[in-house]
C-alpha cells in the first residue's frame, strides 16, 4: 500500500516536472521567434521561395503531363500487343492444321506442296517383277521381227 502510494507520488512529481520541462523548452525560444517575426526581409525571402517553388512545380507539371500521356497510351499499346499476339497465334494454328502429325506423305518428303516444284505422281506404285521385264523385252523383240 505504501509502495503504491509512493509510486503514485513519484509519478505525480515526474509529471509535474515533465510539464515544467515542456514549458521551459517551448518558452525559452520566444525571444528568437520574435526576432524572426520582426525580420524586415522575411516576406521578400518567402516571395523568392514561392517563385522558385512555382517554377519547380511548373517543371514538374510538364513531366507529369508527359507521364499522363504515356499513362493514357498504355491501354492502347496493350491492345495492339494483344491483337498482334492473337494474329500470330492464329496464323501459326493455320499452318499446323494442314500437316497431320505422324503421317508423312511422299509429297511432304519431296516438298511437293511448295509452289514452283513439279510434283511427281506415280500412277503405278506396284514394283516391276522380272516376268514383267521379260514380257516387255519379248514384246519389243516381236515388234522388231514383225517389221
Amino acid at each position, binding site marked *: 500500500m505504501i509502495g503504491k502510494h509512493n509510486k503514485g507520488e513519484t509519478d505525480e512529481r515526474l509529471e509535474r516536472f515533465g510539464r*515544467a520541462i515542456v514549458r521551459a523548452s*517551448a518558452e525559452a525560444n520566444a525571444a528568437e521567434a520574435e526576432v524572426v517575426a520582426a525580420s524586415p526581409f522575411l516576406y521578400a525571402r*518567402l516571395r523568392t521561395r514561392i517563385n522558385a517553388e512555382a517554377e519547380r512545380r511548373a517543371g514538374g507539371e510538364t513531366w507529369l503531363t508527359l507521364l499522363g500521356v504515356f499513362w493514357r497510351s498504355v491501354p492502347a499499346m496493350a491492345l495492339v500487343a494483344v491483337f498482334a499476339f492473337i494474329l500470330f497465334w492464329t496464323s501459326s494454328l493455320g499452318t499446323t492444321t494442314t500437316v497431320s502429325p505422324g503421317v508423312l506423305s511422299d509429297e511432304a518428303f519431296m516438298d511437293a506442296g511448295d509452289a514452283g516444284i513439279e510434283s511427281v505422281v506415280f500412277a503405278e506404285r506396284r514394283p516391276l517383277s522380272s516376268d514383267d521385264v521379260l514380257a516387255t523385252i519379248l514384246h519389243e523383240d516381236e515388234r522388231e521381227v514383225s517389221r
Partner: protein
Amino acid sequence: MDEQADNSDRGALASPGHAADAAVGATAADVSDVELVSRAGAGDEPAFEELFNRHRRRVSLIAGRFFRQREQIEEIVQESFMKAYFALPDFANGQENSFASWIARIAFNACYDELRRLKRRPEGAASGDISEEEEAWLKSQLRDVGAGADVEAAAIARDLADKLLARLSPEDRLLLVMLDVEGMSVAEIGASNKWSISKVKVRAHRARASLRRVLERFV
C-alpha cells in the same frame, strides 16, 4: 489565437460584392482574412502579404516552441506560408472558417515534419547527450518535493529540456506542446490533427508516460 481572431474579424462587414472597391479604396488592414484569402487566390500579391504580416508572429512563435535556432524558426515560417500559398484554393473551397487556425495547423505540421526529419538524422540523436552537471541538477530537482517550480527560471533547464524532449517521439512532443504550452483542448487538437477525441486522449496518455519514463532514469 485571440490576436488572429481579432484580425479575422477586422472588416468583417466588407461584403464580397464590394471586394473590388475595397481593393482599391480601403486599406488592406480593414479587410477580413477570408476576403484576403480570396483576393490572394486570385493573384493579388499585396493581399497575401497582408495575410503574412498578420500571422507571421503567431507562426514564428509556434516554430519557436520546437526549435531554438533562428534559421530553423525562419525555415518553418517560410515553409508554412509557402504551403499555405499553394493551398489557398483548398482553404477557400473547404470548411475552414478561420485562417488563423488553418495556418497554425500548417505550422504545427511543418514543425512535426521537421522534428521527424531531425530524428532520422544520426547527428540529431547525438545532440541529446546530457552532461554530468545537467544530470546532477536534474537529479536534485527531481528529489525536491516542489519539483518543477524553478525549472522554467533556471538557465540550465533550457538546454536540458531540449535534450530531454529530443528523446521523445515527434508525435509525443507535438502533443505535449499543444496540451501544456498552447493550452489547446482535446477537441482542438483532434480537429487540428484530424484525429478522433479518443485517439487524442490515448496518445496524450502515452506521451505523458513516455516523458515520465525519460525522467525516471534520473530519479
